[in-house]
């Protein structure tokens, strides 16, 4: 069972790394948000894989379902904020948000 667990955790760490790299290097707001989605995929894989390896799939599944609901709420709010930012600055560039003048 440890081998399977190792395999899943190996890939979920890869997903989290790719997402973090994109968060640090990209400038488009929507792309940054796609990176956050990738990280959340890695985390949900980690949750379920650990439950699977330890013989607690049902509890892990309940946690993953909760996580997905929270994720959807987060996505809706964040995309609404992104649309509002676009209306204000006419751009999706994250560097333009550094200007304090409104």
């Amino acid at each position, binding site marked *: 069972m*440890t081998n*399977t*667990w*190792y*395999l899943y955790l*190996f*890939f979920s*760490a*890869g*997903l989290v*790394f*790719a*997402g973090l*790299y*994109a968060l640090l*290097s*990209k*400038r*488009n707001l*929507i*792309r940054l*948000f*796609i*990176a956050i*989605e*990738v990280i959340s*995929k890695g985390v*949900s*894989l980690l949750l*379920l894989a650990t439950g*699977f390896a330890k*013989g*607690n*799939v*049902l*509890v*892990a*599944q*309940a*946690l*993953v379902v*909760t996580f*997905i*609901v*929270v994720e*959807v*709420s*987060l*996505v*809706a*709010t964040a*995309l*609404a*904020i*992104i*649309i509002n930012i*676009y209306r204000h600055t*006419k*751009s999706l*560039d994250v560097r333009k948000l550094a200007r304090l003048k409104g």
Partner: protein
Amino acid sequence: MIVQTALLIGMVLFSVLAIFLKDLIRAAISLAVASLLLGIIFFRMGASYAGVFEISVVAGLITVLFILTIALTNTGEEVRESRLANVVFPLFFAVFVVIDALVMKGLLQKIPALPSGPETGTFGEVLWKGRTLDLVGQIAVILAGVFSVLALFRKRDKHD
């Protein structure tokens, strides 16, 4: 095991594509494909409810929201991304994969596992009896999301 590994590799591949594809619509669709593959992985682990949620909500609803936002904010001006970051990524990723392969197994052995008995009952029983507070929290989170979207898109008063 081979199918599972292929699915995992496909998922990581599509996620990386979602981050690095230039066209945002294509990036959103790659993200949906990655979610679909993750849903299939969940099914194969025996977590059918999580799989259904992953495919219907994440691959379906979130992709629609992304494409809607991309369509609403698409007026031609491209955001300039640094090219160096795209070029250097494979190198960094390869280094990370090597470190991951070397370190992860040792880390897993160090994590202490809490003793837990074998699970009984169905998913419904675990969710409704064991994690009732989570469900209340979920309702609160959904309501918070709805109210925040309403607040962000409210019409401006004439005085503003």
